[in-house]
């Protein structure tokens, strides 16, 4: 079989980064994307942290069409009818280099694909990869419909579901407890309205997190990001939590309840709904990262389970870009040395260990286990809301001292063994 140097499956950030680097190194590379164009099947919550990845793709990160740089974090803790909100802003975030940006993937990925094509990679859209080709026990290309394309190296960047990693025997079928489903809505508002409503300067953005009763007490939370002239609003819920719940929740119903909360409506009111999307997210941390290579094949990005939810920060895109670049660098070395064996390609894992990708995943190995404690989504939000309710309420009876009030509410919710256990567990965060 005739073989080209490399095939990249999937036009997301991992795949585009890999193809960019391969083409930059002068290798023949074909990127296959099942959507109309790279980006058209991709969904993000909305924010990318650029510091970890600047050095991997300086030209891309330096000129990408991001939406707004984030200057403010908003956290809202909710019970059924009230909410406590915090904000953190820092003047330094208003000056370059900016730490994080909100982003819309259809736009960003399509632009990125143009840069990849300009480097000389071939991008073929509307092409779904159905299977892998094998030769002497190694991956030797792909099959799409009746068409077969041979390649010395295949980089599987086919997203969180990654059927290719499964077909290559690198991972087991997915389990519900390891993934969450995200539902997202895009609301259009004009730029001025967004800046006025959120108190932002031109180009500045805000990021919001919502936790507590918006998930009906299930693992997960809501998010809100300001884009240039749209808002990204979404809810993430653990699939395992949904499966095990008997609360009569369904995913779209939880989303509807979230959107209708006054704490959300205050931001999106008057906005026109433009898109309704959904995507799964790996939530299990390093525990479910598959084997990362086999002879002739490397796995990158979401397909490799590279995503990290620490509650306050949720990351995936940086891992995708960095792992895509490192997979490509490994492939370039393998092609140059004419050795695409599993043994040689395992250098990829070494590179990942020497970068931020695997160390970050390792450091926060237990974050899911800690965050998955139900009281974080039920008892503590209720405690906070009730405490503030009592502190702010002036009734017709003489008011109790503030300390007594706080102690009474704390006793009701948090001065117990369960809280102690949660605190002990939190040491692993």
């Amino acid at each position, binding site marked *: 079989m005739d073989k080209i140097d490399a095939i990249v499956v999937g036009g997301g950030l991992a795949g585009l980064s890999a193809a960019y680097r391969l083409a930059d190194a002068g290798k023949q590379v074909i990127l296959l994307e*099942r*959507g*109309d164009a790279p*980006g*058209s*099947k*991709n*969904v*993000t919550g909305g924010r990318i942290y650029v510091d970890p990845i600047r050095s991997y793709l300086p030209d891309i990160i330096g000129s990408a069409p991001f939406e707004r740089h984030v200057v403010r974090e908003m956290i809202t803790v909710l019970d059924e009818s009230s909410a406590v909100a915090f904000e953190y802003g820092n003047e330094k975030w208003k000056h370059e280099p900016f730490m994080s940006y909100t982003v*819309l*993937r*259809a*736009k960003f*990925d399509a632009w990125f694909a143009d840069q990849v094509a300009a480097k000389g990679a071939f991008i073929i*859209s*509307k*092409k*779904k990869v159905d299977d892998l080709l094998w030769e002497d026990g190694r991956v030797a290309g792909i099959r*799409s*419909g009746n068409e077969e394309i041979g390649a010395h190296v295949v980089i599987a960047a086919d997203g*969180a*579901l990654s*059927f290719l990693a499964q077909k290559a025997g690198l991972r087991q079928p*997915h*389990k*519900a407890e390891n*993934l969450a*489903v995200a*539902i997202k*809505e*895009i609301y259009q508002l004009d730029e001025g309205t967004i800046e006025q409503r959120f108190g932002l300067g031109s180009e500045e953005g805000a990021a919001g997190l919502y936790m507590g009763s918006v998930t009906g007490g299930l693992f997960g939370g809501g998010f809100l990001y300001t884009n240039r002239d*749209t808002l*990204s609003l979404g809810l993430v819920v653990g*699939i395992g939590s*949904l*499966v095990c719940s008997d609360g009569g*929740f*369904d*995913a*779209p119903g939880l*989303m*509807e309840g979230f*959107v*209708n909360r006054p704490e959300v409506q205050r931001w999106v009111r008057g906005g026109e*709904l*433009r*898109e*309704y*999307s*959904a*995507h*799964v997210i790996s939530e299990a941390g390093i525990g479910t990262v598959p084997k990362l290579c086999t002879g002739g094949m490397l796995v990158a990005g979401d397909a490799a389970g590279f995503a990290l939810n620490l509650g306050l920060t949720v990351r995936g895109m940086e891992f995708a870009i960095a792992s895509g670049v490192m997979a490509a660098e490994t492939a370039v070395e393998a092609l140059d040395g004419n050795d695409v064996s599993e043994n040689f390609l395992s250098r990829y894992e070494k590179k990942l260990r020497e970068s931020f990708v695997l160390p970050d995943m390792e450091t926060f190995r237990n974050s899911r286990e800690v965050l998955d404690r139900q009281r974080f989504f039920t008892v503590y939000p209720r405690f906070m809301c009730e405490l503030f309710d009592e502190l702010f309420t002036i009734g017709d009876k003489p008011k109790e001292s503030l300390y007594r009030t706080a102690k009474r509410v704390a006793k009701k919710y948090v001065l117990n063994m369960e809280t102690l256990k949660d605190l002990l567990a939190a040491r692993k965060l």
Partner: protein
Amino acid sequence: MTKKVEEKIALNAIKNDTKSHITLNQSICAGCKERMCVIVCPGHLYSLNEETGEMVVEYAGCLECGTCLIACTHGSVTWDYPSGEYGVQYRFG
């Protein structure tokens, strides 16, 4: 007021294939009590046809998240991405 889920999905750009990319094994579905597919699908695409007693999935509105495949622990759901050219095309993402 907020829109119904089907009205929300109607806002998306979707090109539908004539054949479904999701198939259900009705003999497995018949013995299923949990019907997790109904609960987890963000598009609310799964329902029970009361007359035939069979589970129905409206593949045409699929958002391609794959949650049903993961949530159906009985293994009734056979799910692949729609073939190239078809399915949802996100304009924002």
